[in-house]
């Protein structure tokens, strides 16, 4: 058996931000690289690349996951939402707006992952306590802000989304 046949590329179909994408990928392709390099959706960042930092967080079938630790082939048939899929045209998602209003970012590297985790939190718990927000951010690391304004941003967004 040749190496090419043994490690045959795999056809996948993934719905990303509502659009269906068909591709043929090497099995070892990580979901984050499929998004960034095959689909040019570079809003999802690679941070630690070891499932610690959360910069690569996207939604897979509605749940926040670390896309550096998911194979693209595991997303076959699934729906993926990335930071690019949050805004409605020119209108920001309330969590994006919250990060702007409450200055929830400095360098911005962790921000897409923070926002995707926060959106998942507010979808499952629309009125989280400060403690619940902090626990939900356990898997997202920020090296600039000290987190205070990130928590404020999410509180602001929760308030807006409840209105």
């Amino acid at each position: 058996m040749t190496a090419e046949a043994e490690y045959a590329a795999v056809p996948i179909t993934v719905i990303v931000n509502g659009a269906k994408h068909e591709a043929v990928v090497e099995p070892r392709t990580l979901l984050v690289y499929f998004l960034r390099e095959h689909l040019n959706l570079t809003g999802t960042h690679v941070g630690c690349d070891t499932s610690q930092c959360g910069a690569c967080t996207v939604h897979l079938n509605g749940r926040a996951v670390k896309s550096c630790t998911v194979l693209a082939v595991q997303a076959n048939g699934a729906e993926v939402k990335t930071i690019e899929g949050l805004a409605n045209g020119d209108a920001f998602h309330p969590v994006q707006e919250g990060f702007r209003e409450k200055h929830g970012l400095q360098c911005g590297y962790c921000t897409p992952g923070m926002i995707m985790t926060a959106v998942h939190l507010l979808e499952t718990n629309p009125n989280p306590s400060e403690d619940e927000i902090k626990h939900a951010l356990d898997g997202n690391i920020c090296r600039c802000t000290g987190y205070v304004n990130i928590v404020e941003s999410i509180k602001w967004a929760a308030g807006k989304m409840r209105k």
Partner: protein
Amino acid sequence: MFPASFGYVAARSVAEALELMAKHGEDGKLLAGGHSLIPAMKLRLQSPRTLIDLGTVAGLRDIREDGGQLVIGALTVHADIAASEPVRRHLPGLSDAASVIGDVQVRNRGTIGGSVAHADPAADLPVILTALNATFVAQSPSGSRNVAVDDFFTDFYTTALNANEILTEIRVPIPAPGTGTAYAKLPHPASGYVVVSAGAAITRQASGTCVAARIAIGGLGSGPLRAVATELELQGKPLTAQIIAAAAAKAAEETDPVEDAYADAEYKRHVAGVYARKAIEAALERARS
């Protein structure tokens, strides 16, 4: 970081996965949520030639009651176990443990079957499942067999599963009335893995006497350890603070803890007693209510 190249096959049933395992032999590796395996493959600690994906098998994700047991499908993710109403009602200690694994994103992908089959000595679920006296159902081409938790974790990253077996279900007895279960963990501050943890299942009579106790400790050995001396100290005794403290202090008796850069053996032995006490007290609180 990329894993070394590998082939990928999506199994559509347990039977098909068993056939694929027979076909690929030692070159094949089962993939569940991938939250232990994929990081290990990215670090090239593991380089299987073929991944056999169980994620595409239907029907291994539910939690149901069956004959006095909660039956948890091997592909159930930690977040679903933590949030499960029957788990919270019957086995709150399991809900405790599932809710402190990794972080939100990890709990949304990592599976109970993957975690126990990987048998990381610093994992949470093996510890609580030992306290809860779980049984593991292993399916092979010739049928299925049950493995008791006390026989399941045999060494570091090693279980009693044979190479031709797939773990399909985890069965946990629904505890007798008057029983409380709990899990207490000292996590490593950076990784979130267990430094030391304790699981407890305590059954008390209305009089306050302990009629049964199963205590398991994580972080001290190659897998979860039963704290037999602690259990014996509790059985038949009134569950007073003094008796619990004296029993918990024996949690690390006759152990030889694995040392690392974060915690030496003496520290781990001490902390094992502290976390055993926390788990017993929390279990007792639930047994009372």
